[in-house]
């Protein structure tokens, strides 16, 4: 049997890693076992994550749509990564991939992350850019529309205040405000 990590040397050592009480066995050569024990932890995620993802993606993401192939496969314009390449390795090719595959990524993200809206830190310079603000206002307008349709007027009022604040910021030229 060959080592499952390097696929080159014969496997002589069987290690077990336990993640959330779930044991996984892996057969390794002495060299890889040594490296992995030195590392201590984190043996399985880099190995199994793409498989896990590909498994998830295979269903619902694109397996069927690829086979139907009624149109050309979606590719990222910036880096050229195709949908099927993404599915194979579970890795995106560049920041723009998230925009290119946005529609298809959303349900996937919901499954692996549970939520689909970022909460938390933002790059400081994103606050400085007018383009970012414009984009943000656009998003907020859509939210406002949804809130009104759902008759959630209290929320809608809050969103409207946010939009006004951002529009004001945009008028004053945000770049001038920082520093």
């Amino acid at each position: 049997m060959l080592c499952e990590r390097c696929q080159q040397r014969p496997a002589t050592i069987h290690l077990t890693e336990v993640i959330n009480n779930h044991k996984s066995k892996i057969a390794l050569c002495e060299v890889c076992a040594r490296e992995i024990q030195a590392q201590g932890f984190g043996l399985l995620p880099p190995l199994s994550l793409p498989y896990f993802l590909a498994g998830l993606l295979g269903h619902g993401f694109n397996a069927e749509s690829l086979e139907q192939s009624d149109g050309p496969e979606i590719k990222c314009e910036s880096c050229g990564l195709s949908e099927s390449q993404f599915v194979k390795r579970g890795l995106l090719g560049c920041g723009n991939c998230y925009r290119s595959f946005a529609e298809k990524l959303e349900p996937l993200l919901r499954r692996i992350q549970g939520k689909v809206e970022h909460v938390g830190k933002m790059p400081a310079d994103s606050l400085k850019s007018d383009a970012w603000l414009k984009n943000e206002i656009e998003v907020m307008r859509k939210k406002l529309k949804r809130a009104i349709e759902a008759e959630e007027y209290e929320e809608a009022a809050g969103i409207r205040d946010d939009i006004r604040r951002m529009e004001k910021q945009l008028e004053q030229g945000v770049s001038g405000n920082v520093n």
Partner: protein
Amino acid sequence: MSIKETVSSAHSKWMDGFAPESDVVISSRVRAARNLEQFPFPHLLDEEKAAQVINAVREAVAHKEMVDRVGVLELVVLNELSPLERQIMVDKHLISLDLLLESQKKAVVLREDEVISVMVNEEDHLRIQCLQPGLQLDQAGQLVNLVDDLLGKTLDYAFMEKWGYLTTCPTNIGTGMRASVMLHLPGLVLVGQLGGALNTISKLGLTVRGLYGEGTEAAGDLFQVSNQVTLGQSEEEIISNLTSIVRQLLAQERVARQALYREKRELVEDRVWRAYGILKHARVLSSEEALKLFSSLRLGFDLGIVSDISTGLITELMVMIQPAYLIKMSGEDLPAYRRDVYRAELIRKRMGELNNQGV
């Protein structure tokens, strides 16, 4: 001190800093993934573009404000280090194994005390990491945040308002942040309550890892707990959630230790003193056996059974007994058996020094 000198010592300054809850928590680590907007992610980078990313980072870490507020950060391209020096950085948890592949495309940034490091062109362009002894997730998080802010002044990050920081693998998007603690849980293992505790944790959005050797016991009773999800939770929430769960585990571990010590005092003492004796006198020691013995010794120290050793020294010895470090020390690539002999010798020497100091 240069990176070259840093990696020749098993001792990292973070090991002897103030370490709250260090009877159970060995270290706290916060890591943030960041990518540059204008480059493809590392797995698609050719050598030329990889070098451009490295240069951009080199410039960013040399920025005056960075030096003033964080300190001098040295960047070194991985293939400028010998394979052994790289492996030692892995042993010290400063870089990941992934960083060793295609080393000409990768770099590491390190502050002299090894508290802050940045891996360049690993899975993501940047992995900003802070490692602290004991339970100090807040401090680690703040430091990562500061370094990230300062790097962000020079570098243009891939970011979307909706999905946050964009990462190569979608399991990291949002905050891009992984917070983790390394726990030493011999008490819960010995009383057989570990399984239950870990089960509960995994239902709370956290991941628990333990590396097992060939037997069924975790090597050294060491476990790593980290956040599972990176999207839809703020950095503060992730850290406070993890901290509060670690505190609960910590309390359970202490109760287990006390109960053990109360009910089976001789058994616990026997285990500790046997470990002490073997470490002090053995002539051949595998790293797995040594790790187990150090686990018992650490327990003995925390329970006040042995007093002439510090947790800092135990942590240092745990790094020192790893294969790469041993090879470095002996100056040659040792075969497994010679390594086990050399390991025993090194440990004997350090443990012997303790008594001579009469501490």
